[in-house]
């Protein structure tokens, strides 16, 4: 091994990036070469110095101020983001795919459903959640229900009314739970998906309500009532 290569390997060795074989080769070279042994010692000194004098931050940055700036930065052009989620070229693919499916459907239908054939009994549409998901859905609804009941029983202007305290982390967890279920059940159970859509709306309202806003709980209560969410939850539970 030449000394130039050994110098590079010394750097990698001090960063812990050599394998056993490479380290053995380097060790042998350093034992035999005084110049490289000295280079190793010197590099160790430099590394130690760099660590001792590394820049350290005097104070934590102002995270809240940073977030406010980011928030205003991302709120300025929400439409662009929405548009990018489904760019124009994807519409071309989507409409081509729909057209292809329609044509295929017509062709299959023409040959499959001939008048001589007996009408094939249609399978009953799957309008209920698959059995394996039913417990998860029920559990999710149970998790969410106490919070919804608090809002549903909220009375505006009542001096003695208890303030609704919401833990942001819990709401976020419920939102994620809701999203996962919604994605899984979107096609399998339209009724459940519709309820989960409503819950998504309510949870987002709860998560985004300003803490000082006196009107917010009443608005959320109205939303729960207008959508008949508690009723839908009871119905789904009995299915």
């Amino acid at each position, binding site marked *: 091994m030449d000394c130039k290569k050994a*110098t*590079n390997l010394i*750097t*990698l060795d001090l*960063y*812990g*990036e050599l394998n056993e074989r490479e380290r053995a080769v380097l060790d042998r070279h350093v034992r035999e070469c005084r110049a490289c042994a000295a280079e190793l010692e*010197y*590099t*160790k*000194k*430099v*590394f*130690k*110095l*760099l660590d*001792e*004098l*590394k*820049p*350290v*931050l*005097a*104070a934590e*940055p*102002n*995270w809240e*101020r*940073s*977030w406010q*700036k*980011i*928030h205003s*930065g*991302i*709120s300025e*052009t*929400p439409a*662009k*983001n*929405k548009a*990018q*989620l489904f760019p124009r070229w994807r519409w071309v693919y989507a409409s081509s795919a729909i057209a292809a499916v329609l044509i295929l459907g017509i062709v299959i239908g023409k040959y499959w459903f001939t008048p001589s054939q007996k009408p094939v009994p249609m399978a009953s549409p799957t309008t209920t959640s698959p059995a394996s998901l039913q*417990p*998860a859905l*029920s*559990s*999710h609804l149970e*998790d969410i229900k106490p919070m919804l009941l608090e809002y549903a029983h909220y009375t505006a202007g009542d001096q003695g009314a208890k303030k609704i305290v919401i833990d942001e982390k819990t709401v*976020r967890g419920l*939102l*994620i*739970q809701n*999203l*996962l279920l919604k994605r899984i059940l979107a096609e399998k159970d339209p009724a459940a998906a519709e309820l989960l859509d409503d819950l998504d709306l309510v949870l*987002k309202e709860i*998560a*985004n309500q300003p803490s000082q806003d006196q009107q917010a709980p009443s608005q959320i209560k109205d939303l729960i009532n207008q959508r008949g969410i508690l009723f839908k939850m009871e119905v789904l539970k009995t299915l």
Partner: protein
Amino acid sequence: MRPFVRFDIYRKDMEELSLIRLAQEGDTLAFRSLFEENKQHVFGIAFRYLKNAEDAEDVLQDTFIKAYHALDKYSPEKGVNFGCWLGRICVNASIDALRRNKVREAHSLDTEEVVDVRANSPRSNPEKTALDIEIRGKIDKALNSLSPKQRMIFILRHYQEYNTREIAEYMNSTEGSVKKHLFRAVDTIKKRLRHLIMESDYGL
């Protein structure tokens, strides 16, 4: 056992993914959570690279705003985790910021946000302090003399402690190229400090 436990197993792994999906649908609350999870990591890269808290805060904001608008391009299926993807944006934003602030960079020794760690050092005495200031000046000059890419690779390896494979991912480069830049960066710093260290009684 509650049936939801099955979901909880995956929940930690899926939480980030779900937050990303929510953010892609325009949910700023979810994006705030992603900010909270990654702010230290992103700020750390920018601060070590720029050595200035104010500039690093600007890069932090720039990184998250760019990330939000590019969220639809992020696809976890490609095997890049979200932190690494953010890191890439931050690396590019930091390099751009350094190019813009080249004039201020020349005066990096005046940086007020940087705390002098010598105060806590057992070797702290006036002579050492003077030597440390001189050495730090040399380190700064050495870092300034590196190309933006070399400097970033050195910062990521030495201060952020990413390995060369991870850096290659951050820099969208190959491991071999990262190692080559790292050798050059370390070589430059060693050359700049050699005279000072050899002449001093830096008892290491």
